[in-house]
Structures are given as C-alpha cells and as structure tokens.
C-alpha cells in the first residue's frame, strides 16, 4: 500500500489520476480505516488530505453562505454556534453519526463519498441545497450534493477527481431545516430511514421547500413531489398527509437486516411529517 500526504488538492488529484488499483482518500478515516481493518476494502493507494492547508476550516462568506474544508469534523461543526443557528438540520444530521470519538474525526465529505444511501448528513445536505467543489485533472467544477452518489458505495467522481470543499448556501430570511432518522435504538446506529426538510416561509405559508429521503433507495433522494405537497400550504394536516404520501410513494427500499420494505415506506412518511414540523417551527423562529 502506498501512502501519500499531498500539500494541495491538485497534487492529490494527480496522485490519484496516476495510481493503479484501488485508491482511497483519507480525511477522518471513519469509513476508510474501518473498511481496511475489516478487510472489506484494502486500498493500493491511500491519499491523506489532512496535510492540505485549510482543510479543517469552517468559513462564513460575505454573502451569508458557508464553506467547509473536507476534513472539518462533526465535533467542530457541532461546536460552531453560528453554523448551528443557520443550519441546525445539517449540523444535527452530522452529529448523529457514530460516537463521540467518531465525531472527532468524521466529516461531511467522507460521509458523502462513502456512497451509503443511509448516510445521515447527505439528506440534510441535499435538502439544504449544499454543493461541493470537485477537483480533477481538468480543474475544478461545482456539483450539487445529490449528483455525487450514484448507487450504494458508488459516486459520480471520475478517476483522479476528489471533493475539495463543501458549500452551504446562505440561510436567508424565514428559513428552517431539520433532519430526522429512524433507528431502533437511541444512538450509535445507522439510519433505517432518514428525512431532511428545508423550507422557507412567507408569513405562515411555505414558499420554498426541499425534501430529501435517505435509506429508502439506492441513493439519497431529492423528492420534488414532497416539496410540492407543502409549498403553498401552512403545513396543515392535509398538507402533512400529502407530504407523507409523497414521501412513501418515492420510496424504493430493500428488505434487509435493518428494516423491511413496508416499514421503511411507512416510516418515511411519518418522519417527513415530523421533520417538516420542526423545520417549519425553526423557520418561524421558534425553538424546535
């Protein structure tokens, strides 16, 4: 196994482009190292990104948006009061992953690139409209989070490409987001269903919405029918029921050790309602 610790993303990209066999990028390592130890994936080339300047930074931009380095950890996000005020759903989703120890290492980018449909931070990022910078041999391009995963363990990143930054949009006025997941326990588990909701209000009426589902299809889903179900409503019971129905209808899950098709389909609707209520309350400036 070859280990590299490049000083720039361009260098990292070049190393990956020229590598043979299995290549993995190392940020927090909470998936890569676990897969290595359990012999699921033994990389031929391991490229450590933590030596690149600024990779652990969390920066607020002049326009109100946020830029996060690829090695910024869940713990650092949770301790960042302003980020949490703007995007509580994204921060809480990230915070649900693993233990306290894992939080000290785990990253949004790693969670995204692992390609798991059950990744907790991904539905929250999709709902929030987060994008990433992808650095490759041809230079940089910006890609929406929902366009990164292509199937379980698979991403749209080409050989030599890697994510070099995460961009969270400006929160703006009267907006709120939330993420809920279902697990049979209270922590230290993996989502059986995950739902991210991000919305904006004009008065009591929902004017913008993005709803995302995790663990109910081969990739995290951005469900337009869910958004349509609540846009224009005051999140009354009829809108919530329509939201739940749309969420359940969008599900294309599998039966596995973690849950059944029927269960995931049903609970996706339940969680969509609950998450939407939290996002709505947050958009109104209420504690939720």
């Amino acid at each position: 196994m070859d280990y590299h610790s490049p000083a720039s993303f361009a260098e990292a990209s070049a190393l990956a482009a020229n590598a043979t066999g299995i290549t993995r990028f190392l940020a927090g390592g909470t998936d890569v190292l676990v897969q290595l130890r359990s012999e699921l994936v033994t990389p031929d080339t391991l490229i450590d990104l933590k030596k690149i300047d600024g990779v652990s930074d969390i920066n607020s931009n002049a326009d109100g948006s946020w830029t996060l380095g690829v090695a910024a950890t869940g713990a650092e996000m949770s301790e960042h009061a302003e980020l949490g005020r703007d995007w509580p759903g994204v921060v809480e989703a990230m915070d649900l992953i693993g233990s306290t120890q894992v939080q000290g290492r785990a990253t949004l980018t790693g969670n995204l690139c692992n390609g798991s449909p059950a990744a907790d931070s991904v539905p929250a990022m999709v709902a929030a409209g987060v994008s990433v910078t992808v650095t490759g041999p041809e230079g940089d391009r910006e890609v929406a989070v929902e366009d990164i995963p292509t199937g379980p363990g698979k991403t749209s990143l080409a050989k030599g490409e890697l994510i070099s930054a995460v961009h969270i949009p400006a929160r703006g006025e009267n907006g709120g987001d939330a993420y809920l997941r279902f697990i049979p326990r209270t922590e230290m588990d993996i989502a059986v269903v995950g739902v991210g909701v991000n919305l904006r209000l004009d008065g009591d009426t929902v004017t913008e919405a993005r709803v995302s589902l995790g663990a109910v299809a081969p990739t995290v889903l951005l469900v337009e029918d869910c958004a349509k179900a609540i846009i224009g409503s005051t999140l009354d019971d009829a809108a919530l029921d329509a939201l739940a129905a749309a969420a359940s209808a969008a599900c294309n899950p599998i039966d596995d050790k973690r849950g059944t098709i029927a269960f995931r389909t049903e609970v996706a609707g339940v969680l969509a309602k609950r998450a939407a209520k939290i996002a709505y309350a947050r958009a109104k400036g209420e504690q939720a």
Partner: protein
Amino acid sequence: MALDDRKSEFTFVGTRPNRPDGLDKVTGRAKFGADMSAPGMLHGAILRSPHAHARIVKIDTSKAEAHKEVKAVVTRADFADVPFKPGLEGEFWNVLENVMAGEKALYDGHAVAAVAATSALAARDALKLIEVEYEVLPHVTDVDKAMAPDAPVIREGAADYSVPEGMHPNVVRYHESGHGDVEAGFAEADLVIEDSFVTEATHQGYIEPHACLGMLGNDGKGELWCTTQGHWIAQKTCAALLGIETSQLRVTASEIGGGFGGKTTVFIEPVALALSRKANRPVKLVMTRSEVFRATGPTSSASMDIKIGMKKDGTISAAQGVFRLQGGAFPGAPGDMTAMCAFAPYNLTNVKQVGYDVMANRPKQAAYRAPGAPMGAFAVESVIDELCKKLGLDPVDVRLKNAAHEGTKASYGPRYERIGLVETLEAAKAHPHYSAPLKPGQGRGISCGFWFNHGGETSVSLALSEDGSAQLMVGTPDIGGSRASMALMAAEVLGIPYENIRVTIADTATLGYNDVSHGSRVTYASGLATIKAAKHAVEKLCERAAASWGIPTDAVKWENGCAVPSGPNAGDFDPRPLADITAHMGSTGGPISGHFEATPEGAGVSFGTHIVDAEVDPETGKTSITRYTVIQDAGKAIHPTYVEGQYQGGAAQGIGWALNEEYIYGEDGRLQNSIFLDYRIPVASDLPMIDTVIVEVPNPGHPFGVRGVGETGIVPPLAAIANAVSHAAGVRMRQLPMSPPRILAALKENG
C-alpha cells in the same frame, strides 16, 4: 432443617466496600485475555467456512506454509481425534469438531484451518493462501424447519436414547416431565388459552472477545493464558483435544471482560496450543468481533406451544408446554432446561412439559445466563398475562394465588425447600412502581422467573501471613465482583478487616479442580468453601492459642478476630488477636492455612419478579422502556452493590433480547449481522434506571444463607417486556425480538 449454626448477624457481610480489582480495571492495569505476550510469540489466525453446510473436499495449505513469515499451519489432522460417540458421551468430540471442522463445515464461520506467523498481519494474509475446496450442501437454520421431514441432516446418529422413534435425525434429545392429568385440568378450567411463540438466538455480547496465549512443547508440557469462566474445564478439554496429560497443561485465567455463560467452553485455546506445538513457539490468538458472533456460542433459538387453563378465581388448573430449541450443529440446546423451568414458579396440580434439542447449521450454542429459561418464561408468562386480561384479574394476585412455596412439588419433580417467590410478589405488589399511573401509549408488564442455581466442584485455600493478613485462593474466575464477596465472607469468619484479605484467582496448578463460574454458583459454592477454609484456619489459630495457654483446644473459641477462653472455667487469659498468633506461627508449629474442597449440593433455587413499563410509538413501532424494577430473592446479599449489578445486568440484557437483538441469517445461511452496528445490543441511553429490590429469604444450604443471583435476573425480562409492549400496543406480541418493523406490522394487522 438444620439451621442452628447458620449465621444471621453480620459485621462485614452486607456492607459495600470497593471491589479489590476495581482500581486495576479503571486504570488499565488489569490484564485481560489479549494483554499477555511472551518472548518469541507468534500470532495466530483462523480460516473459517463461508458456507453454512459444506463437505470439505480438499485443503491445500502448501502456499501458506511456504510464506516466509508463517511458522505453522494446522488443520483437523493436527488434533487428537476422540473416537466418535453419539449424544452426550461424545462432548469432547463435539468440542473438537466445533473447534476445527472435520469432514464437513457445519455453519458459516466454522473453523477449517489456522496459521501462526510472526505478525498478526502476516497471519491474516497467509489465510488467503490456503485453498479449500468445498462441496456445498443444503442447509437449515430455523428450528421448525430443521425438524421437518425434508430437512437436511446435519449428522446421522447424533440422537441419544431419549428421542422417540420417527423423529428427524436433527432432533437429538427429548425431555418430558410433569405430574397430574392435564386433560382433566383443562376440563376444569373456565378459560383455556393455547398459543405459540418464537424467539431468535441472541449472543451474550461480552465486550472482551475471546483471546489466549498458548505454549505447548513436544514434551507434552504446556502453559495457557486465556479469558475464561473456568480454566480447569479449559485445561481438561484442551488436554483431551491435544492428546496430552491434563496435569501437564497449566492454565491461568486472565481478567475477564464478560462471559455470561459464553466463556464456559473452549474455541481458540486448543488451536493456539496446536499451532504452538507445531511451531515450537508461543502463539497468541485473538478473535475479531465478527468471529465472536459467527463462531462462538450464542443462545438457542426457540419455537414453543403453550396451553394453560385457568379458573375464574385465577387458579391455574392445568399447564402444558412444548419447547423446541435449536442449538447449532451439535447436541446441547437446553430444551430440557426450558421445559423444567417454564412452569417452575407455580404450584400446579396438573402440568406437562416437553423439550426438544434440535440441530441446525448454526454455531454450537453455549450457555447464556439461565440457559433455556428466559424463552420458556416468555411463552408461559405471556399466556398467563393474556388469561389475566381476559378474566379481568390482577396479574400479581394471580401469580400469588398460584405461587410455589416451601413444600410445593415443583413442575420438574422435587419438592421445594424454603423459597422466596411469594416474598418477591408481595414486594412487587407493595412497590410504588406497581401502582404508579401510566401515560397514554404506555403499558405495564409483570413476569416471574425461576432458575435452579448450581453447586459444583469447588476447592479453596486460605493462607495467613505473619502480619495477620490473609491470602485467599479461589478457582472461580471473578465475573461479577466475587473477589469482594469472598473477602467479605472470609473477613466475617476471621474477624479481620476486608482490606487485609487478598483474593487471587488461582491457576490450575495451585488448587484442585474447580468447576466453571456458571450456574450462579460462585458466591454460593466458592463462598461456602471460603467460609469453611477460613473456619479451618480458625481451628488452627485456636489450637495455637490453646497451646500457649496450656488449656485444651475445645476450651478456646474465636470471637471478633481473637482467640478467647470459651468460658470462665477455661481460665482467665487475655484475648489473642489473629495477628498476635500469626506473628509467632513459625515457632509454634509453622504456617497456618485453611482449606476446603467439596461439591456442595444445597445451592437453593431462586425466583424473581419484574415490573416493566413500556411505551410504543404507534407510528413507528419503536419501544422505549420507561421504568423497570427487578425484585429477586438473594437469600443473603453478601455485597449488595454487586447483587444489584447482577439484577440490573439481567434486565439490561433482557431488554436487548426482547427488543432488538437477534441472529439474522440470509437465504444462503450466512450470518448477516456479525458486528455491533447491526447486532443491536442496547446502548446506555436506551435504558432507564433499573431499580432493584433485594429480597432475602435465606438459603438453608449455605452457612450465611446465600442463593446465587447471576442468572435468575434474565428469566423474567422477555416476558415482562412482552407483556408491557403488548398492553401498550394493544396487540399480543408472540415473536422476539419485538423490533419496530415487527411491532408496526402487528399494529397494521390489528387495524
């Protein structure tokens, strides 16, 4: 009942000092199974079958042997073969077959070969160089399917004499017991309920994986360090499997990070020794978590049919149960235990129970706290709960009405001596938990539970030091704070402070045979032996004092840590404290020690009653346990904190078993969830504070009244939680675990 010499006033017993091993454990100084190293040590790794059932056509180890870091490769050919004997008599053969597969791989994870190399990484890499040719065979993992006429046969001829003609060869033992006439009893009932229940296999979930360091020379002399509940059984079994003399293998038990019954046999120890013998170097073997799940001993899965008749006043007129237990690809599933325990809490005129031990393509089951009893209690206590509900009766009152007491003929045969079930039920009824109001969506469940408890072979030595301190050597690994309990009991007899006694878990070369730390026997049996060994030392102390005073030994008694004249006629002498006598022991006859060895028979059965509140989310089927109270008879709590710990631990493991823990096998017969992420034991935040009530109805068979407490605590939870969940959800749950998908499906079915 000869109770005259039984102590009831205590100085040290019943107090709560810190455990002697506590500091070592919180500072990391304690040495567990994987913490031992030796010069020249090699690292072992085991190749495991990916198939649930397959004939091993060929194993080619030549490439692994050629690896420059590999020092030894072993297969079944490297073990002493014990001639095959069917049934119970062939247990060594069964263990050998489990430790290293012979002609067939019998389950996913079954060991087929092992290597020892100069590094753990090299050992792991070398496994990939071993070529195994398998002929995959049809498999079965479900207990009911394994009994069906068309089920694949795991092994012909494994059944013993007890199995009725015409059963499938996978049924290997049969048990039937009871008394009275159940049909007549059902005819007398006002309501009869007949129902069926299923539980899935669970793992003990000890946090420390199996680990050992073995050294065995070609001269047949060896040393073994391992994490185990019983190093003498490890010694005996390894010696048999390797064809060496038992006494030539010295086994030392490490500190143990949990066992719960799962470390009462051997898995990797004979493999490490076989590798060591071949390499002539020490070999360390440490299991991964996945290996622990796939290839150690989970509990049995069960399928059960229960029929109980009740009169309108709550009297049980007849009870009958059929219990089918799957125990993996070997005989041993405790169908007999399940059957015998299931109705044991009740005073029944008419009772009949049948148990089956069934083989399937799964790992060989091992003991797990009161093996077999929790599943039977789940089935029986669920039906009793349903009868109470339908007849409008209070579940505690009904259990009190039918409760077994001193003199009751137990469902499994004997008459009970003094027992404490009624006292636990009365305490439950009086407990504020039982009358606390429930919120909407919550339900309350009650269950009783029974376990036999065990005595077992026991040998203890105690040696006094010149300064008046004492060292106590026991042979039962400390899995629940037993060193503290032993020191308290020795302090009580000797009359010296708890802190002045050091308790050591002696190795196999130091004491005679000691049975495993199982059967809730340690505080009872090693405790009894400790008391008697201390009394033996006290006799010698009295002899020395008597000699110094020039009076007969029987004119001296031991009081508050001193030899004193037994009465005014014995003479007027100042008391001689223990340290005063030991200070001069070298010149007054030599070292003073005490010893005791026996197989105590008076373990005293144990009962408990649990109260549980559960809340079910009707939209997701998720259960929260909101309140939990354990009430159990301890006979006499030597160290109440560790008694409470046992009660809480039983409840916590029961909550996991009831709600989310299960072995999940795919269609291919492979275990799907061999990591803690997907094998869902409760995390701390899943559990409420578990309240405990220690009932003390002294056991006539122990000098201080002790009954074992380690196992009974896991018997009631499955049923108590199922009853609480069923009330909260409004639908009877008959299958464990009651995972959210199962509850939600039941809610939907119920409309």
